[in-house]
C-alpha cells in the first residue's frame, strides 16, 4: 500500500512540475523562433531580443515593474513592521479595527480595491502615474507585511523592551537591537510576500496608472492581441532575472557560511535579503543605465501621444526622437471610447489619434485646440480624399493619420466574390457559415453593418431602426455562433481560421499581404469611410512639439514607414501610390485603396443620444454572445 502511494505521489509531483514549467519552457523556445508563429518553429534567431532591446516601451515596462516592486517592498516592510510593533502595544479595540481595515484589500477581489483607489485618486485630483501606482502598491502590500510580522511580535516577551531600556538602551535602540532581530523571520517573509504581490499585480496597476506609465502586466495586456514574439523575449528575460536572483540568494549565503559557523541562521536570513536587494538593484541599474546613454543634448522635451495600439511604424518614434531630441511617451487605447473617458477626466496628452466621429465630439465639447496650419507645411503632401471631411470641414483641428473603409475579409477558398455581391452583409446570417465568422468588437461598426444590411443609414437616429439593427446582431451572435474579436482577427484571418470577418481596410491589406488566399470586399449596401486623425487637446503641455510631430508624420519618410509597417492607407499621396503600385508592399491589394465616391458609403457623425443607445445595446450583444457561447 505504501509503495503504491509513493508511486502515485511521485507521478503527481512529476505531472505538476511539467504542468508548471512546460508553458514557460515553450515560451522560452519560441522567443528564439525566426518567424512570428507561436506554433511552428522555423529556425533560430535572436531578432525578437533585438526588437525588445530597441523597444523603449518594453525596457521601460521592465524598469517600472522592478523599481515599483523594490520600492513598494522596502516602504511597506518598514512601515508594516513599525506599525505591527506599535499595534501590539496598542489597545485591543484599535488593534482589531486595524485588522478589519487590513482585511479590506485582502478579502476583497482585486478589482474592487483597484476601482476604489482609482476613484480616490480621481476625487482628490492626484495625477495618475508612477507615484499613484507606487502608493497603490504600498497600500495593498502593508496589510500582508503586518499579517506576517504581527504573530512574531505578539509571541515576544512583552518585558523584553522594558528590560533593554532598564539596562540603559534608548527606545530606538531597544527597538532596533532587541525587538527587530527577534522578529526577523516574520519581516523577511512579509517582504517576500510584498515583493511577489507587487511583481504579480495587474488589475490594481491597470486602474491607477496614467501618463503612459506601464508595468510588465499592463504591457502584455495591451500588446497581446496581435502575435508579438517580443513578449516571449521579455518574459524569458524575466525568467532569467528571477532564476539568477534565486540562485544568488541561495548561493551567496552558502559561500559565506563557510567562514563562520556561529550565528549562522540569523546571518543567513539577513544575507538572503541583502543578496536579493543587491541583485534587484543591479538589475534596475542595468536597465536604467541603458536609458541614460540615450540622453541627447537637444531640447529634452517630452511629447505624450495617446493612440490605438499597434498603429505606428516601428521607426517613426525613434526617428522623430533622433531628429528633435525630444522624448516621446506613447500610451495605447483599445477604443475611442476608452480614450475619450481618460481625456474627459483631465489626463494630459499632447497628441491624440482618434477617429472621425470622436473628433467631432471632441470639437463639440471643446476638448481640442485649433491648429496653427503655418507650422504644418507638409500637409500639402496629403491626398484630398482624406481632407475636408464632414467631421472637421476645414481641417482646423485635425491632420489625417490613416484612412480607409470597413469591409469583409474572406477566405477565397470558401467564399466567392459573387456570393458576397449577392448577399452583402447578410452573409453573416447565412447558416452555411455558422461558427465560421468573426465580428469586430466595435459598437459603431457592428451597428453600421447591421443598419446597412437592413438598408438604413448608418447615422440613423430612429430608435425603431436601431432596435431592428440590435435584433439583426442578436440573431447573428445567438444563431451563428459568431466570435466577437478585436485585433486578434488579424493573425487569425491571416491563417485562414474562419471564412469571414469584419475588418478595417488596413488590417485587410495586412492580412492579404500575409496570405494570398484572402480577399477583401466592400459590400454594395455601402460602408463606413473613416479617417483617423491627429489632434491636440486643449490642455496639452507642449503644443509646439505636437505641431512638429504632426508635420513630421505628413512627411514622406514617416508616412512611408508608418503605412508600410501597419498596412493602413496613408494620407500622403506619394506614399499611397508608391505602396499600391508595382513593386510596392501592397501591390494590387484592393484593401489598401479604399473605394471612393460611392454614393452608399458614409462617414460617421457624432450624436450623443444615439451613441448612448448603441453603446448600451452593444454591451448587451456581447453579453448575449457570451451567454450563448456556453
Amino acid at each position, binding site marked *: 500500500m*505504501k509503495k503504491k502511494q509513493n508511486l502515485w505521489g511521485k507521478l503527481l509531483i512529476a505531472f505538476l512540475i511539467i504542468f508548471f514549467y512546460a508553458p514557460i519552457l515553450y515560451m522560452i523556445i519560441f522567443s528564439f523562433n525566426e518567424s512570428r508563429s*507561436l506554433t511552428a518553429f522555423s529556425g533560430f534567431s535572436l531578432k525578437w531580443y533585438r526588437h525588445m532591446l530597441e523597444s523603449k516601451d518594453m525596457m521601460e515596462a521592465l524598469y517600472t515593474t522592478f523599481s515599483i516592486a523594490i520600492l513598494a517592498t522596502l516602504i511597506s516592510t518598514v512601515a508594516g513592521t513599525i506599525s505591527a510593533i506599535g499595534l501590539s502595544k496598542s489597545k485591543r479595540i484599535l488593534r482589531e479595527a486595524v485588522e478589519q481595515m487590513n482585511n479590506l484589500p485582502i478579502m476583497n477581489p482585486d478589482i474592487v480595491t483597484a476601482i476604489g483607489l482609482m476613484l480616490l485618486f480621481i476625487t482628490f485630483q492626484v495625477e495618475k502615474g508612477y507615484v499613484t501606482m507606487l502608493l497603490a502598491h504600498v497600500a495593498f502590500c502593508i496589510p500582508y507585511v503586518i499579517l506576517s510580522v504581527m504573530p512574531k511580535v505578539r509571541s515576544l516577551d512583552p518585558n523584553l523592551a522594558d528590560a533593554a531600556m532598564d539596562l540603559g538602551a534608548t527606545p530606538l535602540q531597544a527597538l532596533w537591537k532587541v525587538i527587530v532581530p527577534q522578529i526577523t523571520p516574520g519581516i523577511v517573509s512579509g517582504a517576500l510576500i510584498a515583493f511577489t504581490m507587487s511583481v504579480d499585480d*495587474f*488589475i490594481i496597476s491597470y486602474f491607477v496608472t496614467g501618463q503612459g506609465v506601464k508595468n510588465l502586466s499592463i504591457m502584455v495586456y495591451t500588446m497581446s492581441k496581435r502575435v508579438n514574439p517580443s513578449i516571449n523575449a521579455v518574459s524569458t528575460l524575466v525568467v532569467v532575472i528571477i532564476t539568477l536572483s534565486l540562485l544568488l540568494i541561495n548561493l551567496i549565503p552558502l559561500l559565506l557560511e563557510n567562514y563562520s559557523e556561529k550565528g549562522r541562521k540569523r546571518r543567513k536570513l539577513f544575507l538572503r535579503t541583502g543578496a536579493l536587494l543587491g541583485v534587484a538593484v543591479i538589475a534596475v541599474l542595468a536597465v536604467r543605465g541603458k536609458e541614460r546613454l540615450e540622453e541627447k543634448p537637444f531640447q529634452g522635451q517630452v511629447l505624450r501621444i495617446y493612440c490605438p495600439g499597434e498603429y505606428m511604424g516601428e521607426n517613426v518614434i525613434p526617428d522623430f526622437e533622433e531628429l528633435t531630441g525630444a522624448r516621446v511617451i506613447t500610451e495605447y487605447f483599445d477604443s475611442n471610447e476608452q480614450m475619450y473617458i481618460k481625456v474627459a477626466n483631465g489626463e494630459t496628452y499632447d497628441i491624440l489619434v482618434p477617429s472621425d466621429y470622436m473628433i467631432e465630439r471632441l470639437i463639440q465639447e471643446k476638448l481640442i485646440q485649433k491648429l496653427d496650419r503655418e507650422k504644418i507645411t507638409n500637409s500639402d503632401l496629403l491626398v484630398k480624399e482624406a481632407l475636408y471631411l464632414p467631421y472637421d470641414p476645414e481641417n482646423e483641428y485635425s491632420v489625417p493619420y490613416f484612412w480607409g473603409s470597413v469591409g469583409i475579409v474572406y477566405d477565397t477558398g470558401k467564399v466567392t466574390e459573387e456570393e458576397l455581391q449577392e448577399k452583402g452583409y447578410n452573409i453573416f446570417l447565412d447558416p452555411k457559415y455558422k461558427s465560421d465568422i468573426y465580428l469586430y468588437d466595435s459598437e459603431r461598426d457592428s451597428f453600421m453593418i447591421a443598419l446597412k444590411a437592413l438598408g438604413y443609414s448608418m447615422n440613423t437616429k430612429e430608435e425603431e431602426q436601431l432596435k431592428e439593427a440590435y435584433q439583426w446582431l442578436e440573431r447573428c451572435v445567438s444563431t451563428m455562433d459568431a466570435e466577437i474579436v478585436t485585433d486578434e482577427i488579424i493573425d487569425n484571418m491571416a491563417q485562414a481560421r474562419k471564412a469571414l470577418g469584419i475588418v478595417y481596410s488596413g488590417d485587410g491589406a495586412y492580412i492579404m499581404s500575409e496570405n494570398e488566399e484572402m480577399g477583401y470586399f466592400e459590400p454594395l449596401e455601402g460602408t463606413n469611410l473613416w479617417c483617423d486623425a491627429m489632434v491636440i487637446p486643449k490642455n496639452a503641455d507642449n503644443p509646439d512639439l505636437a505641431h512638429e510631430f504632426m508635420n513630421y508624420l505628413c512627411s514622406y519618410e514617416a508616412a512611408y514607414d508608418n503605412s508600410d509597417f501597419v498596412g493602413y492607407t496613408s494620407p500622403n499621396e506619394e506614399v499611397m501610390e508608391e505602396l499600391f503600385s508595382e513593386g510596392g508592399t501592397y501591390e494590387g491589394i484592393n484593401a489598401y485603396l479604399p473605394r471612393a465616391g460611392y454614393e452608399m458609403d458614409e462617414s460617421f457623425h457624432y450624436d450623443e443620444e444615439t451613441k448612448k443607445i448603441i453603446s448600451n445595446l452593444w454591451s448587451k450583444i456581447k453579453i448575449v454572445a457570451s451567454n450563448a457561447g456556453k
Partner: protein
Amino acid sequence: MKKFSQLALPYIIWAVLMLVLPMLLIALYSFTNQGNTIISFSFTLEHYGKFFTDKDFLLVLSRSLMIAVKTTLLCLMIGYPAAYVISRTGEKIQNFLILMITVPTWINMLVRTYAWIGLLSEGGLVQKICLWLGLGEVEFLYTEGAVLLGMVYNFVPFMILQIHSALCKMDGSLLEAAADLGANEVEAFKQVTLPLSLPGVINGITLVFLPAVSSFFIPKLLGGGQFFLIGNLIENQFITAGEWNFGSAISMIMAVIMMLLMMLVKKAESRNQAQEEEK
C-alpha cells in the same frame, strides 16, 4: 511601554485614507448618478435595480461564481494530494519542491497566462498531442476549458503552499500516537491530518477563490473577446462605457457577496475548531 503604541498612529491614518475611504467612494458612486459631486448628490437605487432586473447580468454573475467554484475545487483536488505528498518527503527534497512551486508565482501572472496561448492555439502542441493520442482535432483556445486551465495554472501554487505550511506545522508525533493507538493510515489521516490541515485548506480556498472570481485578463486572453465574466463587465463599465456609477454598483455587489462568503467560511472554520476542542 506606551511609547511604542504611538508607532501605530501614522498607519491608522493611512489605512483610513487608503483602505477605507476608497470603499466609501465606491459606495457613494454606486448610490448616485453621474455628474454629482461630493457636495451635492441625490440618492438612487437605479444602478442596483438595473443589475438585478436583467437576466443577462445575473447570468454573467452566476457564471463567474461557477467558474470560481470549479477553479477552487480543481485546485483543491490537485493541491491537497500534492501538498500531502510533498510534506512527507525528506527535508532537502521538500525545500527543493517548494521552491519549484514558488518560482512560477514569481514570474508575472500575465506572462504565465500568455505562455499558454501558443500551447493551446490551433496547430499548437496541445492539439498535436491530442491528435497523436487519437482524440481528434480538439479546439482549446477560446473555450471555457482554456479559461479554467489558465485559472488553475495561475492559482494552484497558492493552494499547495497554504496546505503544505499547515501540514508542516503539524506535530509528527501525533501520527505516531494515532498509530500506537491502533489507527491505520487512512483512519489516522481522517482523524488527525485532515482536521489539522483545515486552516491551510481554508486559507488556500480564499487565495484561489477571490482572484478567480474577479480575474478579467485570463478570460480575455484565453477565453477570447466574448468570454464575459463579472470582472470584464466591471472593467467595461469603467474603461470603455464610462458608466462609473453602474460599475461601482457591480463592484459593491461583488464586495458584499465576497464578504458574505468569507464570513460563511470563517464560521465553518471556527465551528470546526470548537468541535475539535470539545473532543
